[in-house]
Structures are given as structure tokens and as C-alpha cells.
């Protein structure tokens, strides 16, 4: 490549940073330019290696991710461009490293807000090492039909409209990247198109200047017309004026320095760019435009006739035979991205998942439509959250309280029950929290923790079949089924279970109706006649009251059946008891208990001498 060329169709580049979207845009540009292969050979991403899957037209290709500049350079010695997307905090160090990497010749630095002292060092170091820096604080630039830096030139539609997929005769350079699309548009509409466009970035000390790039364009025989957009502040445009004057720039140059409005603005208005501030009369836009006009550059009267001057000059060059207008072709189309197609309403597809209880896709995560912050502010509590996520209902305060009472009551029942026992054994076997917890939870079912469920089912059966209590007890006995939720080891009619009393009182005070509880109590009246400890126990009480509560919450009998079938009562038990199980786990770990081995004398060994021989 010639000295004046930074990019060609063969240019290979590294992208520093995980800028997948920018890389995809570069690949799309390459594809549109009908190139044979992508310009990006690798992304340099210190956080991880591997690869990124991107599109080349409709096909997918792998772009490697490499974790250091040195490695990338060793692997792809032909890549001489690096687009540096590192953040303001690390852009300087990354650029210095790239400058000191022999295989890299041109570095575009995207980050804004790099301290000026660092920028000045980068500029000096770049010059010392004979390398090119574009930026900092720039979108980059584009070599039409050849190479595009990162996000320069905007969307594919823009690129197509501005005909950037094939080279024209105009070399353009500006300070602002924000206006480069506008400029490419102006050039496309008034000439045979852009050959190369660079935005040097708006900081006070860019790594390469307007002048540096104009000199490259001057030397490039493919470029016939120079177009430049300067800015108030600094003195870079005087260098250009000097070069026009002494003939280092001979090609026609259409140039406009923006910021002429500064004279009507109050004192120290700082425009968007750090560099855009005139510290003296000579740095004003008017002074610079005047100086350029005086040496023979083509300077419009205002931006409003910038395009007319470009058109005129271009047509003159065509007339003189200097420019033979570039031929156009129909570029291959780039398939639209699925995401964009969705946004534009062009495609649809059936979903595979559905959620009707919560939504985290909006700005605030919500539980059944109630924003999470409101859940906390309005004190929904665990009971309220269960209402939202299990029942999809905003349940009344007493219902929330009832749920929480149940959870508290069933949170633990000592270390001897099967759930806690299993958790303890697992914890002592050195297993982690989840394994130990699950080991305990797996015992929950028809026998352990199942009484709540069973009681609800049994009493519902009696009530729904209009069995009077005696009939009910007799029927169950006839079926040889023990009525679930009846009976306690210690508590009796005379010595009632305090927990049951509290639950009953609460329900009587707050529930509108307690139909199933009343039925269960009438059954209790029958059973306690037989034996005074055949009382409605805590599991039974919870079971029947939950059914009553579900009625209060406007659930139909069918819905309640469904919920019981799908394990609602077990769910409450799992939730509550998990608290206790985790307590046992932590307890065992704190106490550093060793592996548990069951004592042999607690096992009946009744093994036959020999097994029965069959077959």
C-alpha cells in the first residue's frame, strides 16, 4: 500500500472491545462492497477468548476473540488497522500498546473524554513511530468500496443511499463525526461520490489533523476533489491555507469552517466539541474562512451554498476531463436483522414460552402487574407475594396474614422428622446447602407433610357428599381409612393445641365463612367421644382453613380441586419447611458435625443364610 493510503479492499483489521454490533456493520459493509471476505480478522477482548458468530450476508461466520494485542498481532500479522473501542479509562494504555505493536499501522480511537495530556502524548508517539491515529472522540471514517471503521456511515440504508459501496472521486475530512453522514449525502448528491471520508474527532488535540488527511488525499491520484468541514477553535485550518498558498495542496478544495454564529453568542458558549472554542480572534470561524478564501480555496458564503460549490467544482472537473464519473452498480442487499424486522413489524413468530404471573421485560420488574417497588412500599409481605405469584390475586391483608401464620407454624418440627433428618445426614456427609436442603425436601409427600393435603381432601369429601359427621366417620372406617388431620400424641380436648386455637380464632374473626372448619369440628365432636386425643390437629386445621380461605378468595370448587391436585398444599409446606431445613443445615455446619453412621445395634439384621434359588 502507498503511504497515502490507510485502507484498501484488502485491509484487515482488529476491533478492540466486545463491539459485536459494530463488527457486524463492518462485515455488512464489506459484503455490500462485494468483497470476498470480511475485513475484521479478530476482536481483541481481554475478558475472554473464543469466538463471535456473525453474519456474512445470510451465512454465519466465526470471528475469533483474542485476549491480547500481542497475541492478535502474532496470529494475524497482515492486519494493520485497529479500531479501538476501549473506554475513556483504558483507551490511552490500549492505544500506546497498539502503537508499539509493529504490525499495526493505523489506529482509530473511538472513546470520548480522554485527558488532553494523554491525547497529546498519543499524538507525539504516533508521529515518532510513523503511525496514524484517527481520533480520539470520533466515529472514524470510511473508504468507499473498501473499508469502514466501526460504526461510521450509519445504517446500511445510509450507506446504500450515499453510494459508499463503491469509490467516487471526492476526499472528505471533517472534525465532527455526527455530520459525516450528512456530508456523505451531500457528496453523493452532487458528485460521483466519496472516495474516502474521515472524521478526526472534536477534541483539541486530535491524533491526526484535517491537514494530515488532506495531504494524503492530495497525494492519492484516485481523489480529484478535496472537501473539508472545519470548526472554530485552534489553528489547524491555517496550516491548510498555507499549503494551498505554497502549492502543497493543488487539487481544488471546497472548505467551510463552522461556528460563524459564535460572534452573536454570549461570551463563553462552549459548543459540543472540546476543541470548538475560539480563544482568540484568529481562531474564529470568520477569520479562518477569510484566510482560506484569500489563498484560493473554494469557500462558500455559508453552509447553505456548500453543496452548490461542491457541485460546481465537480462539474468543472468533469468538463475538464479530470474526473471520469465513477460507474455505479447495484450492490447486493443485506438481509434485515431479525430484531430490526420485529421492530418494524415485518416478521412474526409464535412464542415457545408464556408467563402470566410476572414480567421482567419492562423498566420495572413486576409481580402480576404490581411493580416490585410497590410490593415493598405497600408491604405486601410474603403472604401478599404468594397471592400475586400463586393465585394471581391481590389478596386482602387478613389472607396474607393467614398465609404467613401457616408458614411460621410449619417452618420446623424438630430434627427427628424425616425431612430434617435427611438434611442433617446430608449436611454431615459434607454436602452443600442445596443438596442438603433438597435431600430433606424430597421426603415431603403423602406420608411426610401430607396430612394437610389429606385432611383437606377427606373433610371436603364428607362435606360435598352431605355426609353427616357420624356417617362420615363410619364411611371412612368402612373404607378402612384413617381420617387425616384428626388425632394428636399429647394434646387432648382438655389440653388443646395452642396453635390450633390461634388459627381457629383468627379464622372466626376474619373469614366471612368457615364452612369446612365447622364441618371438621363437627367431626371432631364425634371422634373425641371415642377418645379425648382424637382432636382436630394442626395439619387438619391448616388444611380445612386453606380450603375455606380459597373460597374467600373467589376460587370455585373445581379450581380448588385443581390446585390441591397440582400440589398447592405441599407447596406451602415446602416453602415453610425449607426455612427449618436450612436452619438444620447451618446448625450442623456450625457445629462441624462429622459423617453420620447409623449404629449397628439400631438395625435388625435378618438376612437369610442363602437366597432362594430360582430358575
Amino acid at each position, binding site marked *: 500500500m502507498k503511504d497515502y493510503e490507510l485502507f484498501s479492499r484488502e485491509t484487515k483489521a482488529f476491533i478492540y472491545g466486545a463491539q459485536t454490533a459494530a463488527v457486524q456493520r463492518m462485515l455488512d459493509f464489506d459484503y455490500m462492497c462485494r468483497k470476498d471476505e470480511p475485513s475484521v480478522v479478530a476482536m481483541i477482548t481481554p475478558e475472554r477468548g473464543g469466538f463471535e458468530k456473525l453474519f456474512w450476508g445470510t451465512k454465519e461466520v466465526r470471528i475469533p476473540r483474542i485476549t491480547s494485542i500481542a497475541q492478535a498481532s502474532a496470529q494475524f500479522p497482515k492486519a494493520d488497522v485497529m479500531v479501538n473501542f476501549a473506554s475513556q479509562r483504558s483507551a490511552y494504555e490500549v492505544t500506546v500498546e497498539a502503537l508499539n505493536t509493529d504490525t499495526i499501522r493505523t489506529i482509530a480511537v473511538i472513546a470520548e473524554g480522554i485527558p488532553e495530556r494523554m491525547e497529546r502524548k498519543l499524538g507525539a508517539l504516533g508521529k515518532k513511530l510513523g503511525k496514524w491515529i484517527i481520533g480520539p472522540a470520533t466515529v472514524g471514517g470510511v473508504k468507499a468500496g473498501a473499508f469502514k471503521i466501526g460504526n461510521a456511515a450509519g445504517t446500511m440504508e445510509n450507506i446504500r443511499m450515499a453510494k459508499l459501496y463503491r469509490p467516487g472521486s471526492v476526499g472528505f475530512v471533517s472534525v465532527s463525526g455526527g*455530520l459525516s453522514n450528512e456530508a456523505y449525502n451531500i457528496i453523493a448528491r452532487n458528485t460521483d461520490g466519496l472516495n474516502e471520508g474521515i472524521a478526526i474527532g472534536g477534541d483539541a488535540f486530535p491524533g491526526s489533523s484535517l491537514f494530515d488527511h488532506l495531504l494524503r488525499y492530495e497525494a492519492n491520484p484516485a481523489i480529484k476533489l478535496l472537501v473539508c468541514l472545519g470548526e472554530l477553535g485552534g489553528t489547524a485550518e491555517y496550516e491548510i491555507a498555507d499549503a494551498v498558498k505554497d502549492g502543497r495542496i493543488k487539487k481544488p478544495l471546497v472548505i467551510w469552517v463552522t461556528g460563524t454564529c459564535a460572534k452573536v453568542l*454570549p461570551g463563553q458558549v462552549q459548543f459540543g466539541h472540546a476543541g470548538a472554542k475560539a480563544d482568540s480572534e484568529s481562531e474564529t470561524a470568520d477569520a479562518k474562512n477569510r484566510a482560506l478564501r484569500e489563498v484560493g480555496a473554494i469557500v462558500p458564503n455559508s453552509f447553505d451554498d456548500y453543496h452548490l460549490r461542491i457541485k460546481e467544482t465537480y462539474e468543472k472537473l468533469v468538463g475538464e476531463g479530470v474526473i471520469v464519473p465513477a460507474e455505479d452498480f447495484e450492490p447486493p442487499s443485506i438481509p434485515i436483522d431479525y430484531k430490526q424486522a420485529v421492530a418494524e413489524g415485518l416478521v412474526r413468530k409464535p412464542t415457545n414460552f408464556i408467563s402470566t404471573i410476572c414480567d421482567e421485560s419492562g423498566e420495572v420488574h413486576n409481580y402480576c402487574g404490581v411493580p416490585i417497588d410497590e410490593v415493598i412500599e405497600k408491604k405486601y409481605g410474603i403472604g401478599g407475594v404468594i397471592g400475586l405469584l400463586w393465585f394471581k390475586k391481590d389478596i386482602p391483608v387478613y389472607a396474607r396474614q393467614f398465609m404467613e401464620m401457616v408458614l411460621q407454624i410449619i417452618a420446623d418440627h424438630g430434627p427427628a422428622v424425616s425431612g430434617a433428618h435427611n438434611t442433617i445426614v446430608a449436611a454431615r456427609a459434607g454436602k452443600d446447602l442445596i443438596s442438603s436442603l433438597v435431600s430433606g425436601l424430597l421426603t415431603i409427600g403423602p406420608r411426610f407433610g401430607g396430612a394437610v393435603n389429606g385432611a383437606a381432601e377427606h373433610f371436603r369429601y364428607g362435606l360435598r357428599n352431605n355426609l353427616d359427621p357420624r356417617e362420615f366417620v363410619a364411611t371412612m372406617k368402612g373404607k378402612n381409612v384413617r381420617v387425616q388431620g384428626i388425632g394428636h400424641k399429647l394434646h387432648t380436648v382438655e389440653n388443646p393445641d395452642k396453635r390450633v386455637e390461634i388459627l381457629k380464632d383468627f379464622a372466626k374473626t376474619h373469614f366471612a365463612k368457615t364452612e369446612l372448619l365447622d364441618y371438621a369440628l363437627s367431626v371432631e365432636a364425634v371422634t373425641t367421644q371415642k377418645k379425648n386425643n382424637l382432636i382436630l390437629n394442626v395439619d387438619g386445621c391448616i388444611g380445612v382453613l386453606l380450603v375455606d380461605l380459597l373460597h374467600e378468595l373467589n376460587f370455585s370448587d373445581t379450581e380448588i380441586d385443581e390446585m390441591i391436585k397440582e400440589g398447592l398444599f405441599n407447596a406451602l409446606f415446602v416453602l415453610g419447611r425449607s426455612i427449618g431445613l436450612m436452619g438444620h443445615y447451618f446448625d450442623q455446619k456450625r457445629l462441624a458435625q462429622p459423617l453420620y453412621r447409623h449404629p449397628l445395634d439400631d438395625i435388625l439384621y435378618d438376612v437369610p443364610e442363602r437366597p432362594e434359588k430360582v430358575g
Partner: protein
Amino acid sequence: MAKKGIREYDAKRLINNALPEYSGGRFHTDDRLVLVTPKTDLDQLLQENPWLNETKLVVKPDQLFGKRGKNNLLLVNATLPEVRAWIEERMNKEVAIVQTTGETTGVLTHFLIEPFVPHEEEYYLAFTSNADADIIHFSLRGGVDIEEVWDSVVTIEVPILTDPASVDVTSHLPEMHEKETVAAFISALYQVYCEYYFAYLEFNPIAFHGGTLVPLDTVAKLDDTAAFQCAGKWGKIEFPKAFGSISTPEEAYIAALDEKTGASLKLTLLNPEGRVWNLVAGGGASVIYADTVVDLGYGEDLANYGEYSGNPTTEQTYEYTKTILDLMTRQPDPQGRPKFLLIGGGIANFTDVAKTFTGIIKALEDYKEKLHENNVKIYVRRGGPNYKEGLENMRRLGERIGIPLQVFGPETHMTRIVSLALEEGK
């Protein structure tokens, strides 16, 4: 934006913290200095700084303007009661000060009190930077307008890649008393200039007293983009606004919106009676629209400068537009002429044009009646993603609210709407 002025108090505080480290403990500046603001409790200040009662003092405003002596805003060799009375007389008072750039009026709110240092020699010392080098300026003739004695200033140019600690200052200094000490002090201070990311540092004068240089009047700018690199060095630092820059409530409101978001929203009110109002997307384009109004000879009609960019939300563009419409429609042109709203912009890179127009359209609808009353004509020009839909929405809005509204896309030159409006406004 990069170079920002800081208070003399902060500049001296930073130098005070840093100088011992960069001079190997050889130099210390006086750490006795206090800043008095409208909120300062002077009695408490005295309790915390008993030296105020023990020495003669200097007091001056500390609000980013110079030539305080010439403006009669400097009291030297005074006692504490004198200083108190002096401050009380001036606090919260409006004054007009004359600087090289002209006269500025503003309110005095910050005062710096330091010990008075009796001295004989007054030098000039400054550090500045250009693209290739830092420049150290020194003159034996300080305490005067340095431009008038510029011939006496020696300069040391330090190329940017030089190690700041290796600069030979001595050989560049003129023959003078305690030359080696002065050189060593300057060398240490230069390192502070670099390491603390100063963008400008000037002492006029700096005195020689007690075996060391003593900064008297200090002007400093920091590179505020180095806030991350200098978090520890700077501590809590304030970047005050230029003296006398008073913003209107509307400008302050937009500035507050701007600070709250990652998007950029800017507004400077130039002439509330002006007839040309800009509502332009993008920093670069906004300058060009304002330029074109001025270049076509209508600078006096230009009502505002401003821009919105960086993908503001619908809510933000709505608020921004409402603020401009409110200012624009407070009273019709006294001569009954139309007013022009230029909703301009270049070709956006990735911003969805239709989306950003949503907030603008909503605000225009809210102001329908007022726009009529003020005989407002609207011109729209924009390009970029989804621009066709955006322009179509605008066109329909014009029909809906019955306001003359013309829309243009990328096929029309960006500033054409300026000349269209101005031609009509003739």
C-alpha cells in the same frame, strides 16, 4: 469540556498537597487559607483557624476573574476585623469588573483569605500547553500586566514525551538571587502541573520569601476529563461557572435535565424577541443552523442556540420542546410578523427519527393555540433511520393542528429550511 477554571483556593490546596511529594519534601506552601461563602459561619471559621487572628491577612474574591487589584477588590495587610467588615460589605453584592475581555457584571459570593506575606521580589510564573509541548514561562517582572513586559519572559519548551522530572530549568532562568532554589521549585511545580492534569496554571505574582517561592495570585484550569485518573489527587473539586454568567430559569431547567441523563440537551437564550427559533438535533448540525441564520444576515432574529442528541427519551424531547415553545410564544411579534420554528438536523447515524419526533409532536400539539396566536410557521428537515415515518408524522401533525408546516428529507440540503424561512420572513 476539558479545560475548566477552578478557584484559586482549590488550586492552592492542590499545590499545597502535592508540592512536598514532588520536591522530595523540600518545598511546602502555606496551608493557611480559607474560603468564605454566603454559608460560612465566620465565628466557627475563626475557631477552626485561629491563625486568622494571629497574622495580617489578604482577602480577595475567588470567582475565576483576575485583575482584582485594578478592580479595587483586593485588601492586603489587614486585620481580621478589617477583613470581616470588608467581606460583609461586599458579600452578595453585584459588581461590574473590567477585564481584558470587557466588562462583566456579577454577584460576589466567594472570598479567599490568606496570611499576608511581606516580600520584595515579585516574579511571574506560568505553565501552558500546546499540542507538542508544555511551556514554562518565567519573568523577574511579576505583579504587572505581563503582556506589557512580555520581552522579559523566558520560556522553556518541554516536548510532551519528556519525563517531567528531567527538565533542566536552571540553565534557562535569568541571573537572579537564589537561582537554584527557584529552579528546583519550578521543576517540582511543573511535575505537579503534569501529574495533576492542570491545563493552565499562572502565578502573577509569585513572591520569594523565606527561602521559597510563595504563590500570591493564582489562576488555574484543570482538564476535567481526567476526573477518573485524578479522583484521589483532586479530592472534591468544584468547577464554578464563569463570573457573571447568569442563566435564565429556562436555561437552568434544560441544564438540569441535561445533567440527569446520558443524552445531551442544551439551550442558550440569545434574544427572546427573536423570530427564528432552532430545535435542532446534533451538536454539529445545531452550530451550522445557527451559523446559517447569522451568515444570511439574520443574526438579530436568532432567538436561541441549542441542541438535543444522544438518543433522548420521548419524555426528554417533550420537555425540551415545551421549554422552547413556551419561550417562543410568550408574546406575538409586535409588528405582527410570523415566527419560525426550525426543526432541523442532519442524517442521523442510528437514532430512530420517528421516535425522537414523538415527544416534539406531543409538545407541538399542547401548544397548538399559542402557535396560532403567535403566527408560527414550522420547517422540518431530517434524515436517518425511519425518517420517512417521522416526516410523515410531522406532516400530518401540521394538518391536524392547522399550522403551516413543511417537511424535507435528505434530498433537500440541510440548511435549506433556514433560507426558506428567512426568505419568507423578509
